[in-house]
């Protein structure tokens, strides 16, 4: 249930990132997903939707693919041709009034064909959380493959 006035805080490993609510997402509990029992491959679980299986990936705090058994939910980001999922350690909806996001441009070559993974940041004194660029982040997840 995406709300354009909210950000979603995603905790991956020990690191939190923000996803703009306007990008569109759904949160699924693990029991509604099909866990990948094979230790091989990048996919941690699938969501079965009609005749399709939507992949969900498990990433560490540096956004590298990892696998660990102790997770309870995944966030599926709206995308074409189908949504793509992300296993999260914690997920929290933050009202936009509580977050002040300023633009941020990472330096150097972007890692995806759609640009840098981050387009903003929420700065709280000396602490900050990076805000995903939804299109680039989806492109990154899609680049992880369907196996």
């Amino acid at each position, binding site marked *: 249930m995406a709300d354009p006035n909210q950000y979603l805080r995603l905790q991956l490993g020990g*690191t939190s990132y923000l996803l703009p609510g306007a990008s569109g997402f759904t949160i699924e509990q693990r029991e509604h997903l099909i866990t990948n029992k094979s230790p091989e491959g990048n996919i941690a679980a699938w969501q079965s939707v009609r005749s399709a299986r939507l992949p969900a990936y498990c990433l560490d705090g*540096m*956004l*590298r693919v990892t696998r660990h058994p102790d997770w309870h939910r995944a966030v599926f980001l709206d995308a074409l041709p189908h949504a793509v999922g992300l296993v999260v350690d914690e997920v929290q909806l933050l009202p936009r009034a509580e977050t*002040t996001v*300023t*633009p*941020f*441009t*990472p*330096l*150097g*070559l*972007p*890692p995806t064909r759609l*640009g840098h*993974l*981050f387009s*903003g*940041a929420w*700065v*709280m*004194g*000396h*602490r*900050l*959380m*990076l805000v995903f660029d939804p299109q680039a982040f989806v492109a990154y997840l899609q680049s992880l493959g369907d196996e």
Partner: protein
Amino acid sequence: MGKPRSGPRLHSLEVPLDGITLLVPSAAIAEVINLQNMVPVPFSQPWMNGAIGWRTLAVPVISFETLLGAPATARPAIGKIVVFYPLGGRQDWEFFAMFAASEPRPQVLDGSQPVAEGSELPDSPYIAAGLKVDGRLILIPDLEALKKAFYPT
């Protein structure tokens, strides 16, 4: 003995790095701050160490030494962070920063300082020139080349 050649005075700052010293116009530097926690930016270039919170902005922090070809290293334990104003033509929030080994020192140039020979300079597109100040080599970064590295698209 002739008087040293002199010209308009240019207020600059010497920024001591690890093994080299940069010379930048004072007007290019927004603030010098103490080291603080830095957030890593996944999949960034080896010369980009991460980002810090500064005022209301996230500011990317670079290692100029790594940009010159030195191996990437962890955040130094001591030193300063020098925050630079955005490069010409960039957005007014696109500050960037680099680690300095210690507090930058003011340096007033008047054109009398000898220019370093090309053979004395690192072989890098990010160095525009060098000066000899009190017998020490100080390097002038090429801000246009930096801009191309920072914002290649």
